[in-house]
């Protein structure tokens, strides 16, 4: 029997998982923040990445899910999660909140992939602040990028699959 990872890497693309990531992210923002994520008109527009939160996936599906946005969006996410004003949000709280967002999106996504929930574990989140960095993923295929808008601000969710 092929693992979920073998199945997905056998395909030409990961496009079939895009709607699952979108729904997973929408549910997290709707239930935990009371905000709607929408799709941008220009899906190719670059997303600022002042804050990047990452969660590793291991087991039947190995890879990395990351959530990127700018500082303003990160502060608003944190403010909505905590129920406090944006100017009261500390950098530690911002990192914690974005880490939880990436954790919940990754968990919600894997629970939506049939048969994957039991066989895929999540790492604790890692959060990078600052935009002057590059990532080099030892992935088998290009990452699946999902661009969405949070309160008109762009956010980017990327899923890198390793085998």
């Amino acid at each position, binding site marked *: 029997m092929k693992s979920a990872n073998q199945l997905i890497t056998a395909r030409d693309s990961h496009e079939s998982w895009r709607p699952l990531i979108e729904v997973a992210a929408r549910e997290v923002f709707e*239930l935990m923040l009371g905000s709607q994520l929408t799709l941008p008109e220009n899906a190719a527009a670059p997303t600022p990445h002042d804050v990047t939160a990452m969660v590793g996936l291991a087991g039947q599906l190995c890879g990395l899910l990351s959530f990127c946005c700018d500082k303003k969006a990160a502060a608003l996410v944190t403010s909505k999660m905590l*129920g406090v004003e944006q100017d009261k949000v500390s950098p530690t709280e911002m990192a914690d909140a974005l880490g939880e967002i990436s954790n919940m999106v990754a*968990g919600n996504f894997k629970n939506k992939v049939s048969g994957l*929930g039991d066989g895929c574990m999540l790492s604790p989140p890692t959060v990078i602040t600052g935009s002057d960095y590059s990532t080099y993923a030892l992935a088998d295929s290009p990452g699946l990028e999902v661009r969405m808008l949070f309160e008109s601000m762009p956010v980017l969710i990327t899923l890198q699959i390793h085998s």
Partner: protein
Amino acid sequence: MPISALIVDDSSVMRKIVERSLRQAGIELAKVSEAGNGAEALAALQENKFDLILCDINMPVMDGLEFVKALSGVDNAKGVPVVMITTEGSEAHVVQALSAGARGYIRKPFTPEQVKEQVVPILAGKP
């Protein structure tokens, strides 16, 4: 009657969200204590007794399942219901948690209504 609750999660933001959700669910809280992992929660239980424990699964040092299993040896935890709140939503995880001694299971992301549905019957002593 107001209750005392212990919220166990490695995310301080999530601990605050869980506390707020309990209040939004109409549960009166006399006292709320927080712990960042299972080991910290066990330490809190050495000195305090709670009416309800809400616990994440994936945490450093001691995870939620280990914590629930360890509660059988803690006097202050006897009869105290534990509700897991976690991103681990698979059936196997639910079965594992309930077998370990948890009374309820809430998947993240969640709403205050879902917290109410799980927690209120447990506090009322319903199976």
